[in-house]
């Protein structure tokens, strides 16, 4: 195996890992010095790299005199100045506040398309992954669970884990009805799905999944097959959307999300019908998501 320092990959570390005894320019120059890049070219490349991340005016500051976002930029310049064929970013935005993070997401995306370098961006933030990636690999216990473009992962997740990890999901455990696209929940309610993961066995133990944005609320019993009575436990204002936390008769929770303009705030304790179309319901082989990883699907 090739030693790390001989690979054509550079990394932006989680905590930036800038050398505290060197100023921004020296940090950026470090990698070029190791390669023996001649001084004239080195200075030009350091200047260009700092300019690219708009940190040229901070070139002589030590990392301790820079804000988190500025350190982030220097770390980016330090890694990119070596013109690696792959740039690895290890949760680089984790320490930044939300606004700065969104700003950096856009900048990183722009930078990537300008440079054409492959960026491998490691993140726990699924929204970040969806927003920034051309292609996402969902990892679980060090293995790739599914690799695909964001829409494919979101619309056709291969496993319940991926379904829950990308976006939010409501999971209903139960058993498949024969080899049909329907399931019976543990309380005996039958739900119809339009999709089941390939290889699902006859009468298999399954998790049915429906996204909150597909769970609709109605005051009167709807004609849809997939329906449940529920009680409103909480209204959560999310800006452009409303999230309703519903409690089912068996005590389970169900989330429903709707655009603000389509709904009013419903009083807590109100009895409603929650329903969804069968084409928004998918069957996955059962897995105990909660015990393994906490709740990967909750934000």
């Amino acid at each position, binding site marked *: 195996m090739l030693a790390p*320092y001989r690979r054509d990959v550079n*990394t932006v570390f*989680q905590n930036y890992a800038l050398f505290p*005894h060197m100023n921004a*320019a020296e940090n*950026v120059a470090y990698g070029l010095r190791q390669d023996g890049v001649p*001084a004239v070219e080195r200075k030009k490349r350091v200047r260009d790299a700092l300019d690219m991340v708009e940190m040229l005016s901070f*070139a002589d500051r030590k990392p301790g005199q820079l804000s988190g976002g500025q350190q982030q930029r220097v770390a980016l310049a330090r*890694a990119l100045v070596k013109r690696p064929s792959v740039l690895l970013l290890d949760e680089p935005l984790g320490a930044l506040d939300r606004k700065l993070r969104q700003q950096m997401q856009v900048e990183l995306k722009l930078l990537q398309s300008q440079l054409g370098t492959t960026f491998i961006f490691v993140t726990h933030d699924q929204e970040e992954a969806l927003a920034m990636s051309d292609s996402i690999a969902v990892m679980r216990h060090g293995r790739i669970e599914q690799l695909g473009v964001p829409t494919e992962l979101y619309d056709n997740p291969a496993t319940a884990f991926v379904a829950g990890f990308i976006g939010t999901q409501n999971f209903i455990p139960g058993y498949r009805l024969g080899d049909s696209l329907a399931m019976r929940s543990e309380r005996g309610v039958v739900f119809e799905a339009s999709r089941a993961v390939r290889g699902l066995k006859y009468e298999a133990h399954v998790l049915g999944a429906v996204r909150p944005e597909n769970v609709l609320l109605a005051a009167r019993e709807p004609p849809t097959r997939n329906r449940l009575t529920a009680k409103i436990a909480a209204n959560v204002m999310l800006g452009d959307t409303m999230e309703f936390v519903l409690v089912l008769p068996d005590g389970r929770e169900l989330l429903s999300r709707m655009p603000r303009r389509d709904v009013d705030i419903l009083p807590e304790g109100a009895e409603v019908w929650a329903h969804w179309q069968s084409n928004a319901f998918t069957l996955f082989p059962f897995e105990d998501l909660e015990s393994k990883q906490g709740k990967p699907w909750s934000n």
Partner: protein
Amino acid sequence: MAWPALVWWTVFFIVPLFWIVLYSFGSRPGAEAPGPVALETLSFDNYRQALSEIFFRVFQITMRTAGLGTILCALIGFPVAYAIAMHVPPRWRSILVFLLIVPYWTSFLLRTFAWRIILAPQGTLSEVLQAIGILGRPLLILDTNAAVQLGIVYNYLPVMILPIYVALERIDTSLIKASMDLGAGPLQTFLQVTLPLAAPGLFGGLVLTFILAAGDYVVPTILGGTKGLMVGNLIATQILASQNLPLGSAMAVMLIGLLAGVLILVALLLFVLQRLLKLVRGAPL
């Protein structure tokens, strides 16, 4: 809110130092006079007396012994500190550091005397060395400068190791990974990242060890005999044996001044070296 430190500093450092300096200008009191020093007439007589050839010869030996001892301590201590800080899992580190300090629960005198037994011409070490053929005759190291050197390295090693260890232990390991990621090999990473970041600890250890070693008089008294004199012995002899506190004080003040001079010289040298290194490496921009 620095006044507690200021009070401590004043009471335990400034005031005693002031007295020593004052005494160094006094003279030996007459037989009936009270107190250790007569301060009626102040003069430079003690300094004139102290500025002898012997004092400078002993001072030279002291600098050599302390300097070499400090360098040896650093050469032995740095790898030890590095191994504990970088290659030992965190839960074992404090145990190892504790083990380093354990011998210091025994008296300094006792530990130094113990070396007399080890180094004696008829001692175990001597016999083992002769038995395996390294030495053709008994080990004749006791009561020489070499024994003093050894005693000093032994006694001050932890003073060197601890500050270096603290500095190394604080280094974020991701900096080392970052250095490797940017193309530096293990040696370059050590020279450009680990060593500069450990420098404050290393300098702390060097200065502390050097000062303590240069002022030591117990080790040369016990292990050096008549051949292994150090400045500390001269001062102690004046103050304790000759009852000449003023002359001893003058020697002590000279020792402090010369030590400060040596340290300033070394600091200047390091500063110039650093500048030169920067010049050679060239500006990053």
